[in-house]
């Protein structure tokens, strides 16, 4: 067992601004699955066995411990508890075999959970997603202040999850907090 310490993308404490709480979520390991050419059907069968269902275009399957969402044609992101990050990609590779290409993505993303009554108002000044028309399980890739992010509606009530590029965790967190202040 190695002795290197895992560093969070940002390492900041949850912050409540007005009604909205912004929390860095360090508990998710990620790997992407891309169907091999001509293997969509078999790939989707495995996907179903892993997630319980195949995420439709623009949708997520929200499930524990493994969740997933559609990224692009024949491409999905799988999320799993962070404890599994050492083995997630290998585990998926074993399951999918020659049906899919697996790419480890745990290190690539910073994840923020944004929860609160004013979440939709905040969304409106952050990015071009029709947040008020999105239901739990809807996912949209979009730009948040020039950063390519996934916005996942987790609950119909007041919870979205934002996946953004890890190297810009600080910038992304800054725009989230200023937006929360603007609508507070």
């Amino acid at each position, binding site marked *: 067992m190695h002795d290197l310490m895992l560093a969070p993308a940002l390492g900041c404490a949850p912050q409540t601004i007005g009604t909205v709480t912004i929390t860095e979520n360090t508990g998710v390991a990620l790997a992407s699955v891309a169907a091999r*050419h001509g293997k969509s059907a078999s790939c989707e069968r495995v996907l179903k066995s892993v997630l319980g269902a195949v995420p439709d275009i623009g949708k997520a399957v929200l499930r524990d411990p493994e969740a997933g969402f559609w990224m692009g044609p024949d491409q999905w992101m799988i999320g799993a508890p962070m404890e599994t990050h050492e083995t997630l990609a290998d585990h998926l590779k074993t399951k999918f075999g020659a049906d899919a*290409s697996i*790419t480890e993505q745990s290190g690539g993303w910073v994840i923020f959970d944004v929860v609160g009554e004013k979440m939709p108002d905040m969304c409106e000044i952050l990015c*071009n997603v029709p947040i008020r028309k999105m239901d739990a399980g809807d996912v949209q890739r979009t730009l948040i202040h020039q950063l390519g992010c996934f916005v996942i509606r987790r609950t119909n009530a007041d919870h979205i999850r934002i996946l953004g590029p890890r190297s*810009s965790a600080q*910038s992304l967190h800054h725009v989230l907090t200023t937006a929360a202040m603007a609508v507070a």
Partner: protein
Amino acid sequence: MSQKNRIAGGQIDRDTPLNFTFDGKSYEGHAGDTLASALLANGVRLMGRSFKYHRPRGPLTAGSEEPNALVQLRSGARQEPNTRATTTELFGGLTATSQNKLGSLSFDLLAVNDRFSNFLTAGFYYKTFMWPAAFWEKVYEPIIRRAAGLGSLSLEDDPDVYDKGFLHCDLLIIGAGPSGLMAALTAARSGADVILADEDFRMGGRLNSETYEIDAASGADWARKTVAELANMPNVRLLPRTTVIGAFDHGIYGAVERVSDHVATPASGKPRQILWRIYSQKTVLAAGAIERPIAFDNNDRPGIMTASALRSYANRFGVAVDKRTVIFTNNDDGHRSAADLHAKGVRVIVIDTRMDARKSPDYEVLVGAQVINTLGRLGLTFVTVRLADGSERTIECGALGMAGGWNPNVHLTCHQRGRPTWNNALAAFVPGALPVGMLVAGAANGDLSTAGALAGGAAAARKALGLRGRLPALPLAEDAPIKVTPFWYVEGASRAWLDQQNDVTVKDVKLSYQEGFKSVEHLKRYTTLGMATDQGKTSNVGGLAIMAELAGKDIPEVGTTIFRPPYTPVAIGAFGGRHRGQEFHPKRLTPSHGWAEEQGAVFVEVGNWMRAQWFPKPGETSWRESVDREVLATRGSVGVCDVTTLGKVDVQGQDAATFLNMIYCNGFAKLPVGKSRYGLMLREDGIAMDDGTAARLAEDHFVVTTTTANAVSVYRHMEFVRQCLAPDLDVQLISTTESWAQYAVAGPKARRVLEKIVDQDISNDAFPFMACANITVCGGLRARLFRISFSGELAFEIAVPTAYGDALIRRIMTAGEEFDITPYGTEALGVMRIEKGHATGNELNGTTTAANLGMGRMVSTKKDSIGAILSRRSGLNTADDLRAVGIKPINHDDTVPAGSHLMNTGAPVDAAHDQGYVTSACYSPNLGHHIALAFLKDGENRIGDTMRLVSPLTGVDVEVEICSAHFIDPEGERLRA
């Protein structure tokens, strides 16, 4: 009582007095006032000086079309010039100052311009400041610049923040007057998602300014009740204080919401304004209409305004501008103003140009009469009227309302190339071809009665949403035509103002015509009619009418100028949003950023990345000292550099090798697993695009690197090839730049350092030059190791999942302690690659071919690849092609700066004799002098030649020797060690 012109009624909150100052003097107004209404209530009619002649001016209108009453609002950093007093919502502590004066507002020294008006006519500047040419920059321009413009900037940073946002709706309704409110009500009750935007702080539009009744209540009451009903509906979003500034393609509208302009300073964290991008399925434009003035001599004195403005000030704001008022009209609506003012106790005389004008028992009507002149130095005191019989009469008054008819507000209908059409009955332009998805209702559509507006609004909403079924009963409202007879200007008028913002008179328009500037667009540019902040909202049609008369044409034949966004001026800050200063663009931090900060690194922006440029040590006084040390230490022992920023793309699939063969000009099919190879990508035109390495980790898995700068565009190109050119190859691409932290460990001791970290044998036999592998480090962490070298030293690049990047750099530093491991930044990286003759963006600069780079033989002829065919064209393969070479100064103290050009010794220094140019240069601490990389014609055959290196612009002229670009270890023994 200080508010001497305040009268009963209106929709101001008399329980909330607000203090404010204008030109340093304190006044009191009420909540619900605008700055203009509050000043008028206090008897202040004079609010500014005109642009060119510095004539005294007061408000012409009570809305956003205002050309005159522009003030400087607030002070200090928040000072904002050219703010319309007529739309500025009064707040406690507001400070405003008048503009465009030298001295005081009532005694403006530049008012002398008015005396010279005969010289300062249209085209004056064009004609006068022609010669002598040398005078332009030194004399004329500074004088003109000082005299021109209205307000001034604070020249301080704007302390406020601005947001940008996105809204979505089924129906966007622009304008909350009777038609807009009725449209909103109709749509909202059907369940549609509705956004109702209005530029005013109080919704209701003209209803707030009229005495019309709707359903036996006042129009203002009906508006208030309707707004309250809408506010309670979850599918309705009301946006007061929001101007829709533009209609863009496919139902996208721009709107500025003034979130905090009505308070002294925005609350903490709150934006001053939000620039909304509104996505609407359908749009109802219910922007109302603007009353137009009439041109007669001296029609610009403070106290002269549109009749509807007088009506607004009386009905909505409880202000009688003066107790003795004259209305000059060509239509029945002027009489409406007269009746309303009379009801408020104002003595009114109506001058009606029409011979058949109706008389009134309440006020005197002069039929077939015209106002021909006015008096009053700083404000109106008398008007001179020519009666129907030709005699003249002088009337004492302090306010004059001009009722020249109404112009439907067609602005936004024109933003998609639509041109308005002329309506003879209204003597006005009405909407023509509309943007896709837009409907127009109410006065904006030429429906000038309240009943018409209500019906039009309801019908537009029903049509927009495809609602069927019985039409619900509409509220009962007044319905009367305004019966206008076109009347644009008084015969013989000369200094009769058309465009008060730009000081354009009837005479100027005539002059423009005489001098041949007859097209509308020429007229605008010659006279400036319709320019500046109001964009001619009150003046354009009048100007057109005069042009039409001069040309003997109809108004529609003369044309109309094109309306473009924005509808009203927008602060630059709103367009910038949060993207300013340090937030101009997001920053990307490398995994070692925190550690590098601890080391005191100096950072440089590379794209969005912040990279360590060098790591100064205590006592080092210049960047060169640090960089030289880093280079020498790396070449002497070992150095480490964060190279995470290089683009990384995961290429997987059975056909991955075939795919790489296509995008790289050199071959990859036979690259064995466990090996990496340098790859050069060409554009289809044969020019080099990018370079990097591809490492084969498995039969069906490569990791491709790109340069930092081109990571995004190369990935896009790879997807283009995959999806558009080879859609049925089994290839999957994922960008993994962010997923791996990668460090270059370089120098003769590099292996000794990494042996302590890596869990496997990395001896030269086990892991030779260009080897690559999935490995583990530190007892089990998955990692990737590449034996590649940019510095020319024995080097490895080691990658771990990004979250371990910080831990790994610290571990490498600990492991390297005994070898004095030195972190190096991008400067040292640059020096070492120049010493080694490696190309980067300076060399792959979008004009160079593989042959230029000395890599011509890499372009495989055995396979197809992007750019291969065109790289072989004769034009790119001439005998004296540029070749990459090295440059050394003969005199070792000379520098050889990048951008300098190579010339043959003794030849003239000019473009015709140019032999090549320097792309990259640095001081080489290993060689003890400056070196450079250059492209030189026929360079490979000129090694050893002496040439002249010149840069006439920067005074460089030195003798140099042409040499190999490989200054260090040309045989490559070090990297294979």
